[in-house]
């Protein structure tokens, strides 16, 4: 299993540009998540999904959109990039196990908006 994969690893955007961060998992996990991590900080939840066709907002959803058309993929869309979106983005997935919720993380995408 490749686990959770993310592309690209790095990206530089100009203000106002758009892009899609890709995330895929091959563990047949129901739940998938997008987090952002600012320097020296913890992870903030942007969006999450409990299954194909179902998405919900996290703590910091503004400026982002997601879709979950398949169990495996959970892309994150930035429509109008802003400098405040400069961050490292992590995708994660987990099985539906009730109380337990071990999340497996991808390697991250480092995004800079200039």
């Amino acid at each position, binding site marked *: 299993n490749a686990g959770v994969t993310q592309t690209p690893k790095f990206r530089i955007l100009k203000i106002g540009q758009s892009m899609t961060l890709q995330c895929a998992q091959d563990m047949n996990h129901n739940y998938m998540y997008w987090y952002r991590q600012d320097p020296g900080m913890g992870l903030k939840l942007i969006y999450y999904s409990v299954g194909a066709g179902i998405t919900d907002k996290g703590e910091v959803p503004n400026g982002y959109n997601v879709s979950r058309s398949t169990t495996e993929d959970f892309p994150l869309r930035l429509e109008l990039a802003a400098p405040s979106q400069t961050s490292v983005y992590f995708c994660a997935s987990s099985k539906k196990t009730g109380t337990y919720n*071990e999340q497996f993380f991808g390697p991250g995408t480092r995004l800079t908006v200039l």
Partner: protein
Amino acid sequence: GESVGLHLPTLSVQEGDNSIINCAYSNSASDYFIWYKQESGKGPQFIIDIRSNMDKRQGQRVTVLLNKTVKHLSLQIAATQPGDSAVYFCAEKPGSSASKIIFGSGTRLSIRP
């Protein structure tokens, strides 16, 4: 609102000594807690977890202690090794959520040779 915080942002430990990383949480309804390790340039990696009906859980060289009375969580690493250098995050799952967890801001652990 909900928050998970840490007492110390950095911790320096002599190689071979035990490390103790502390975490305070504010949501008394949280029913599940996790410690993650994040090495430089990588995503967080699960270390150990504990349910709210427990006060201690042991893994390989790691122990998590939960004190619900004061809403405090700690991670103990025995015989700290250079490979333990990383940022450690505690996270909590609110009882109202089946899927979301909330991360704290992290403690950087550095090892002195």
